[in-house]
């Protein structure tokens, strides 16, 4: 992310944004980008309003006060803008960071770990803000995150990097094939399952089989049918859960996934 924004220099290669090479057009490109890298650190001794005004003035275009009020409203900081930033919670700082990134109406937002350090409520608020910026305001948003579940909820396209190398990229709904969701079924450990599964269609989906636990790779839509079959075979079902598929997908790509027994 830092390299994309010219904060660190690549050993080799070039960065292109919307087809324009970054190195020679840095100022031009940065005028149409809003970014938060890691934490949105600001001047704690200044108010939220002052911080917003300062970074708005640095954004390369003349921004009226009405626009500052507008972004404060959008990120939910209206009424708190006169408080010193050092008195803000992490979530408020994060939202002010988004306001700073948005104030000059950029086409592209680059957010590095936008939910870092936030409590669950803050994470949910940030997630809905990001989704709204994309859906309602038409912004292109590039997010990097280690929280794959967040990406799964927010992103439409993704690119996975493992040990500095691109592993895969594409549309999230195509990459996360619903037929390959992992379904964990906790069963009565004493249930006599024997070879009952072997001759059924479920055997093809079975990934692991341990005492009291069966794991299937299948479309979650088939879960009710599987449950009915297990019950019909007198196998007590204690719990069924679908594992986060992006997490599993990532692990499978990086060879750390569970292996079929």
């Amino acid at each position, binding site marked *: 992310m*830092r390299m994309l*924004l*010219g*904060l*660190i*220099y690549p050993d080799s290669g070039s960065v292109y944004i919307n087809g324009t090479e970054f190195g020679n057009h*840095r*100022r*031009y490109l*940065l*005028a149409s*980008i809003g*970014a*938060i*890298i*890691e*934490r*949105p*650190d*600001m*001047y*704690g*001794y*200044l108010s939220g309003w*002052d911080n917003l005004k*300062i*970074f708005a*003035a*640095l*954004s*390369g275009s003349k921004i009226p006060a009405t626009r500052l009020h507008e972004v404060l409203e959008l990120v939910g900081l209206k009424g708190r803008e006169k408080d010193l930033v050092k008195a803000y919670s992490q979530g408020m700082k994060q939202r002010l960071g988004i306001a*700073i990134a948005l104030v000059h109406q950029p086409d592209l937002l680059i957010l590095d770990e936008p939910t870092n350090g936030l409590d669950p409520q803050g994470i949910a608020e940030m997630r809905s803000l990001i989704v709204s910026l994309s859906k309602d305001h038409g912004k292109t948003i590039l997010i990097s995150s280690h929280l794959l579940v967040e990406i799964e909820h927010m992103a439409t396209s993704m690119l996975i990097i493992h040990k500095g190398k691109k592993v895969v990229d594409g549309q999230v709904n195509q990459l996360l094939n619903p037929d390959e969701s992992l379904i964990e079924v906790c069963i009565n450990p004493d249930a006599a399952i024997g070879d009952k599964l072997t001759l059924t269609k479920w055997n093809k989906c079975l990934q692991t089989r341990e005492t009291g636990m069966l794991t299937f790779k299948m479309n979650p839509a088939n879960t009710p049918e599987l449950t009915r079959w297990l019950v019909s075979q007198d196998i007590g079902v204690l719990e069924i859960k679908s594992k986060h598929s992006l997490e599993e997908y990532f692990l499978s790509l990086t060879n750390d996934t569970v292996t079929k027994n």
Partner: protein
Amino acid sequence: MIQLLRIELYKIFKRPRTYISFGIVTAITFVIQLAMLTDGKSFIGFAIQGIDEQFDIQGNMLNGYLVTYIILQSLLIHIPLLVALVAGDSLAGEANLGTLRLLLTKPITRPQLVMIKFTASFIYTVLLIIWLAVVALLFSVLLFGTGDLINLKSDAFIMILKDDVLWRYAAAFGFAILAMTTIASLALLLSAFADNSIGPIISTIGIVVVLTILSNLEIPLFHHIKPYLFTSHMIGWKGFFDDPVPYGAIGRSCMVLLAYTGAFLGTTIFYFNRKDIQS
């Protein structure tokens, strides 16, 4: 550029730390003025001991001009610390706060940012020296009145008529601004290397102290390097209180200080332009 400079100055003067320097200058000046008010006559008596046996000295010797000269001699050694407080913090402080990466994702170039930081430090330095001039010269004149200035040197005794003093102070303060700008540019350079302000501030003072000691050591080994140390030229302001004024030496000192300032600033831009921002 003007807009960016206004923002930078706004940030500097919104920070309470900035005013510490102005407070220190005021406090030290007032302490010296108070000391001279209470015990100035005996101080003067001690200083001209021996001279008054050979000369008949009349008039107001303990005047505002002399007190200002005494204040400048005591204070100009410490002003670099106060200048380094702001200039040393300018880039490293942003890195420490984490705002440097936010600044550099805005459409401003790195050389532009360095130039803004330098200009803001220069303006701060000018204001600090002007403040020193106001509290030292104005208040001393108000408290002690005016008179001829006696400049006692180790090998000479110079009497400057009171009508001939003010322009010398103006020139001396102007020279002090140049000398302190050199310190500001050094602090800015060290600030570009660091990610917290303490290092550059202490390093600047350390360098100034070490070089000042070298500048003052009367050891033949150092005689060859002394003319090239910027600290040897920082006391050039005293030349304006000589008779005749050594314009040649003062001009050379100005050139050396300007060269150092340019070199420090150029190196800062060169280094900072290539630096990976990891903070």
